[in-house]
């Protein structure tokens, strides 16, 4: 790299106060308890069920041809969606933060709509809107997933962009750098962390999406069937163990992405600590 990336620390890690020692432990205990009861316990039941018939059966469940095909399709389409929404996310965040136009605040508010709209409504609408052209094809799945993952990168990039010190950019510009270069060399490196963070969440969300996809994709095995729908099929076929096995795979995938994200964040902010 010709120039070292200039990173503006976006978080100042406050020196933790020792005064909260006892209360801190209590708080930690409460948090962990809540998290365990609400999230971990059900997932533990799931993992347990997936191994109900032994490891051999677990392996067979997740290597069934339809399961593998579904997983491959799910991962590929989620990656595609993540990349698209990462690029568009940065663009949208840029326009929202740096540009000014009437209705900007309204547009900004709308970004979070996919969080608020039920997936069934999203699927219904996309089906009605784009109907014949894309229904029951891979494009339909793409559209649905673009909708539900839209906010992630936008929302993670916005605060960083806002906090960015413009001096660097102005300096570069005054030295003759073109806007594109300024963006590429100065702004973008500062956004990388946020982009990756948002993208990871978007990906995790996309691989698990069910409500909007199931209506619109046609769920053709080996074609447009995503893993969540395949798991659903297993449940309906009274194969809860198989469904659990496939679900555990999905879970491991998402968890893997999130953990990788945390590791990346720690690495990226290593100079701050």
């Amino acid at each position, binding site marked *: 790299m010709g120039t070292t990336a200039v990173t503006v620390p976006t978080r100042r890690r406050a020196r933790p106060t020792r005064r909260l020692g006892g209360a801190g432990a209590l708080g930690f205990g409460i948090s962990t308890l809540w998290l365990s009861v609400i999230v971990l316990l059900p997932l533990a039941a799931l993992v347990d069920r997936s191994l109900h018939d032994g490891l051999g059966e677990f392996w067979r469940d997740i290597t069934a041809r339809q399961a593998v095909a579904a997983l491959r399709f799910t991962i590929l389409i989620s990656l595609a969606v993540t990349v698209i929404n990462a690029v568009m996310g940065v663009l949208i965040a840029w326009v929202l933060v740096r540009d000014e136009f009437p209705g900007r605040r309204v547009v900004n508010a709308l970004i979070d709509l996919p969080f608020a709209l039920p997936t069934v409504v999203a699927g219904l609408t996309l089906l009605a809107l784009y109907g014949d052209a894309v229904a029951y094809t891979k494009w339909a799945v793409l559209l649905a997933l673009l909708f539900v993952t839209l906010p992630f990168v936008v929302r993670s990039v916005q605060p960083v962009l806002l906090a960015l010190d413009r001096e660097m950019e102005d300096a570069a510009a005054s030295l003759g750098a073109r806007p594109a270069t300024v963006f590429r060399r100065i702004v973008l490196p500062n956004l990388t962390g946020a982009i990756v963070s948002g993208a990871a969440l978007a990906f995790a969300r996309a691989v698990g999406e069910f409500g909007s996809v199931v209506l619109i994709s046609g769920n053709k095995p080996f074609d447009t069937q995503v893993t969540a729908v395949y798991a659903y099929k297993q449940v309906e076929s009274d194969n809860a163990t198989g*469904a659990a096995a496939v679900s555990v795979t999905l879970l491991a995938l998402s968890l893997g992405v999130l953990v990788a994200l945390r590791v990346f964040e720690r690495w990226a902010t290593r100079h701050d600590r």
Partner: protein
Amino acid sequence: MTASRLALRFVALGYLAAILVVPVAFILYKTLEPGPAAVWRSITTPAAVHAFWLTIEVAAIAVPLTTLFGMVCALVLARTRVPGRSVLEALIDLPFAVSPVVIGLALFLLYGREGWLGPTLAEAGIQVIFSVPGIVLATVFVCLPFVVREVTPVLREVGDEAEQAATTLGASPWQTFRRITLPAVRWGLAYGVVLATARAIGEFGAVSVVSGKVSGETETLTLLVEKRFTNFDLAGAYAASGLLAAIALATLLAMTLINRKGAVA
């Protein structure tokens, strides 16, 4: 004002329009198509009214619980040095990553009649699954990360000097929290609460599996939309969707008013 700036704006807004705005505008249009009177009738049937209140009730339970947890957890993550913090932080994001089908299945396996806890709870006379508690549990699951994720960075950024000063001056932990910490994070907190509320109201997948869909009892607004759609009552489905979209927009409006610090210049 350059051509490139306009181009960027055009592309960004165009994309948003295609992916986001047009579908939502379409719902609202389809909703109002039969006329306001028909829409009103559609959303005031006994089942619709009940579904509305049930949805609100579930959110009214789930969101405060999530907020409480979120606040406590954020304090732990940003203000303490308890070992295991980072594991906690990683696990917080789990609900984002779990498919609704998986959540529903997992809750089934835990609280169902043959699940881990099901029989024990049944003996105690508690019905979790197929009743409101089950719906609340599924909703709390999906809302879990929201408040934490909004408050923690704010806490970290704000720093604890003011809090330390307060303590030095003799304030009790509770006073410090109420007078210093809370006001400092209030906008992040509000934003997290609003997000969690929107999510709670819109949850469909996991609730669909655990609710039992007893009309007039465990049918939420999102389930009602699906049912009407299934029964070819498209006008009714759109009416209920429109209601949901309206609530969603109201939530977002609240967010715009709150104007989350650092979102838009």
